[in-house]
């Protein structure tokens, strides 16, 4: 049985209809990323899950518990679903201090314990210094962090995050991303995260669900969906990226040696690498193909592979190599001709260590 079974139809009067079907098995990692263009219905799906929006048809079941069933007339109130929701636009309580906001959902414990939990979560999200302020006195990014702290402090059974990091700047986003993943892992919380950001999807997600054109188009492990989009629409939404499950085996001089399949590649050591789990991401655009081993270059990685498929994509050719794992390169049509890139052809793939981003998955 799936942990979460959702099939909803929500018709907006004078607006579009959002339909989505999403079955999430339990156990194989808690975080599902909901990816999709603006207006696809991501927020609508989260709100239906939280019980804030009543679907016009369908059913939602979580761990065998029926939360909603249009046919049976079941509609569990939000408070009884135990869902944590981080709103896209924060919705902090303006009349409460940050501390009281964060502590709002902490119930069934005494004052001291509540204060302790608030302090702990606040520290984790770097908002300790703001606890005495009110939401009106926070910057955009600070508000988002506080909203996140508030959702986490309530220790929900299912966490729904609507673009949790979108108001942060890049460094803060990257720092918090790891924190968030760690928090989600630690809590063992099944979570659904809406994001527009690929790195965020990789850092946070175990599964990726692509929502487009009024329905869920593909669900699967993050790297699978990124590396093998089911159709053109999904490909357009997720972009072209090699996302390879990787394991760090050695670290030296600021570089990390990473096992990808049977190959070993060098990548920049992003630091904080106590945990060895990662995705090695490299954009297909960044893979340089060569007919023969090159002269001295600054490209640190050279992978031998066999072309297994080619397909034209506008002015480019998408060349899929088998290097022990599947590697996609995008080259110009002209280059592909010069290299004779056709199935069966042996080629070398050059990749600079700096072009491989390691997206960590703290455990």
């Amino acid at each position, binding site marked *: 049985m799936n942990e979460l079974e959702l099939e909803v139809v929500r018709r907006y009067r004078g607006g579009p209809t959002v339909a989505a079907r999403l079955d999430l098995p339990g156990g194989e990692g808690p975080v599902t990323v909901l990816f999709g263009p603006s207006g696809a219905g991501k927020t609508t799906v989260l709100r239906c899950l*939280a019980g*804030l929006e009543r679907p016009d048809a369908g059913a939602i079941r979580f761990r065998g518990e029926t939360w909603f069933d249009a046919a049976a007339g079941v509609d569990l109130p939000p*408070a009884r679903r135990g*869902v944590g929701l981080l709103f896209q636009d924060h*919705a902090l*309580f303006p009349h409460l201090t940050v501390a009281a906001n964060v502590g709002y959902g902490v119930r069934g414990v005494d004052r001291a314990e509540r204060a302790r939990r608030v302090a702990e979560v606040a520290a984790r999200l770097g908002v300790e210094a703001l606890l005495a302020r009110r939401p009106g006195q926070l910057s955009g990014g600070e508000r988002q962090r506080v909203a996140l702290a508030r959702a986490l402090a309530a220790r929900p059974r299912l966490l729904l995050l609507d673009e949790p990091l979108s108001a942060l700047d890049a460094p803060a986003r990257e720092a918090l991303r790891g924190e968030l993943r760690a928090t989600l892992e630690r809590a063992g919380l099944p979570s659904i995260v809406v994001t527009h950001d690929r790195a965020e999807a990789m850092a946070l997600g175990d599964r990726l669900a692509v929502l487009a054109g009024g329905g869920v188009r593909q669900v699967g492990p993050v790297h699978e969906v990124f590396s093998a989009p089911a159709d053109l629409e999904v490909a357009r939404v997720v972009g072209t990226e090699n996302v390879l499950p990787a394991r760090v085996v050695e670290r030296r001089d600021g570089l990390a040696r990473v096992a990808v399949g049977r190959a070993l590649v060098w990548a920049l050591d992003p630091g904080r690498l106590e945990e060895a789990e990662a995705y090695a991401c490299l954009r297909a655009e960044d893979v340089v193909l060569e007919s023969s081993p090159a002269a001295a270059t600054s490209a640190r990685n050279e992978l031998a592979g066999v072309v297994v498929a080619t397909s034209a994509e506008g002015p480019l050719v998408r060349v899929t190599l088998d290097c022990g794992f599947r590697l996609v390169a995008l080259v110009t049509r002209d280059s592909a001709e010069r290299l004779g890139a056709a199935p069966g052809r042996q080629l070398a793939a050059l990749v600079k260590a700096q072009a491989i981003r390691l997206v960590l998955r703290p455990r």
Partner: protein
Amino acid sequence: MDPAALRLSLALATLTTAALLALGLPLAQWLATSRSRARPVVEAVVALPLVLPPTVLGFYLLVAFAPRAPLGRGFAALLGHPLAFSFEGLLLASILYSLPFAVQPFAAALARVDVRLVEASYALGAGRVETFLRVSLPLARPGVVAGAVLAFAHTVGEFGVVLMVGGNVPGQTRTLSIALFDAVEQLDWAAAHRTSLVLLALSFAALVATHALQRRPPSARP
């Protein structure tokens, strides 16, 4: 200046306000959020005491309080004495009469509470009652305080209804407003001025305090 009348008026106003907070807030919340077809009708019923001249309301209450009438009989059995000309009768009349003064500002303020914040509270595991107490009510506070002050003040100043169902019984139904009217009618304007002045000073102090306490949301910014 009649200290018994002052005490009585304050007691009446305090109890009326308390009762209106207890009864009026749930009613106002329903009015503010319900999408029921019955809402405009209930809203109008609540507002009715407003348009009734107090003496007419008082007159009908007098009729209803009579020991022969069902309401009067019921209460007489309950209280051990008739409802008319008693403090309890006055309290009941005041609650009815001030209902719209309290409920309308309550409902207007509650209707303006941002749905998102209410939903955020639900999502954080709070039920309807908790959400009402911890989110809607604090956010609607200016309106709630305004309604409570209106109801309190209105009860202190109420005259027509008290005149009709009170019977000017010292310590029971002789409120400050009735005592003042008596002084005026006796052409004892000096006493009237004195009593008015005390009433004015007291009310003014209370009002300034309420409004000063009515802390504004902190320099909210976008």
